[in-house]
């Protein structure tokens, strides 16, 4: 069972929920797919690092002895990653999606593919929990190959996927193929607006979903009205509390610090399990 934790709006408590859910389930694996700003591993200070590997993507390498400057490669590139000038061909690696189109388009077989590193994949163990996360290299724009590499390390059994905020390609890549997506929101206008956007993406992807409201008590009641109107399951509520915010700020896991929450998160996992067709 793979459960993704997403939100739309940032800072609603995805990592708080993902870490607590993982430690409440024996042997659960935690995959942090927020590769731009991975945080989940920070909550496991006793982790033992097992793996640090490079995430590499293909990038064109041009053999200028063979190149006849026909411009076929730059015409074929949908991402403007190649510019064929009269005397040379410029490659912009950050724009390249690694599709291999230029290699196929070149009539002189002057293009080969090299590899470039866009980030790193880490795997660690903490207690009986397997942790995997990706770390995008600073200055890199494309997240999807690294998210894919993290997701590929999902082991059979229970895996919790901590997703990036937003509603575009990074989110799509992180939630793709997960059995259930738990959306974490807050009862504020911003939380509701972005929840609605994220729910639209998940509906399009046909992923079963439910909602957790964090920071209950702040804002207004519109999120609750929205969920009732749309018949979307409200699976848990975490109240706004200075104690919980402080635990989080110090890098402590709610379900480990307050045992009652461990039980609630275990029950949440059970409820999710029942919602998976």
């Amino acid at each position, binding site marked *: 069972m793979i459960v993704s934790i997403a939100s739309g*709006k*940032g*800072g609603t408590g995805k990592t708080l929920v993902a870490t607590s859910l993982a430690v409440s389930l024996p042997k659960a694996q935690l995959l942090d797919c927020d590769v731009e*700003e991975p945080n989940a591993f920070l909550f496991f200070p006793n982790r033992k690092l097992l793996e640090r590997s490079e995430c590499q993507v293909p990038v064109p390498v041009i053999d200028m002895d063979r190149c006849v400057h026909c411009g076929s490669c730059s015409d074929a590139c949908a991402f403007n990653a190649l510019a064929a000038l009269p005397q040379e061909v410029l490659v912009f690696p950050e724009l390249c999606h690694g599709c291999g189109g230029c290699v196929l388009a070149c009539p002189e077989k002057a293009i080969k593919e090299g590899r470039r590193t866009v980030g790193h994949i880490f795997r660690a163990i903490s207690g009986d929990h397997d942790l995997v996360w990706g770390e995008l290299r600073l200055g890199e724009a494309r997240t999807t190959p690294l998210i894919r590499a993290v997701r590929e390390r999902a082991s059979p059994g229970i895996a919790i996927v901590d997703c990036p905020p937003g509603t*575009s*390609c990074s989110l799509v890549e992180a939630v793709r193929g997960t059995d259930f997506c738990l959306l974490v929101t807050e009862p504020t206008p911003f939380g509701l607006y972005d929840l609605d*956007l994220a729910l639209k993406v998940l509906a399009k*992807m046909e992923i079963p979903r439910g909602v957790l409201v964090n920071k209950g008590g702040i804002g207004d009641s519109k999120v609750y009205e929205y969920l009732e109107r749309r018949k979307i399951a409200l699976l848990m509520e975490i109240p706004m509390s200075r104690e919980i915010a402080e635990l989080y700020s110090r890098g402590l896991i709610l379900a480990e610090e307050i045992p009652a929450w461990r039980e609630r998160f275990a029950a949440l996992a059970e409820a999710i399990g029942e919602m998976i067709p």
Partner: protein
Amino acid sequence: MKQLAVVSGKGGTGKTSVVASLAALARGVAVIADCDVDAPDLHLILHPQIRERREFFGIKRAVIDQQRCTKCMLCQDHCRFGAIADLKIDQLACEGCGVCKLVCPAQAVEMIDRLSGYAYISDTRYGPLVHAELLPGEEASGKLVAMVRELARDLASSLGLDLVLIDGSPGIGCPVIASLSGVDLALVVTEPTISAEHDLERILGVTDHFGIQSCVCINKYDLNPQTARHIEELCRARGTDVAAKLPFDPAVVEAMVKGVPVVELDRPISDLLRALWKRLREQLSR
């Protein structure tokens, strides 16, 4: 014309609430640009009256003409994004590279423009706002950010306004880089949590990487004064100005529910936001 981008690394640190207040303080001198096109929220506070809507075409998408298709499977074999299964295109996985069209011997694949979102030019009480909407699950958010910024710059120069105020998205990837490229100053809004501190170091690494001057606002600093001090030390050590320290204040959410910039509620936090605005103006005029 100067460009100021507000970013954060970690999400939910208070970017949009800060930007809404800066927009109110910059009334009449700035064009505001909501570049968080994935999850835009600034309009919930600024209540734009839309004047103009532009269509945004992101990347093209492949479509297979089943009549022409000879089922040779070359497209499926060459697609590196796993976007073709049983000779059908998974539109959410397709990156629009066009390799399928390139390899198809039967000319059965077309690359078509697909509407991926909209950009809007609007009026608000505080001045013009350029904002956008990315349709659910669409890609190319960086390209839409670039479009919003171009519209905002054009608007600022045609109206003779001195500043483009940019609300960025969380993270450090494509839309953030598109929000930051070429700005005069980046304000990074952070909070005293170990997550935000970790993310702050990464976003400052990105601003350094692109040679962009940056300063920091520590929001909700009193939630964990020790971590807040740690962040201040970190900033001092790398020569980054801490332009403001804002306390946790329920007025921020109260203002969000009311749909007004928090600076207008006239609470203690309002004076701190005014001081931040003054400091930012000084840094921009250097």
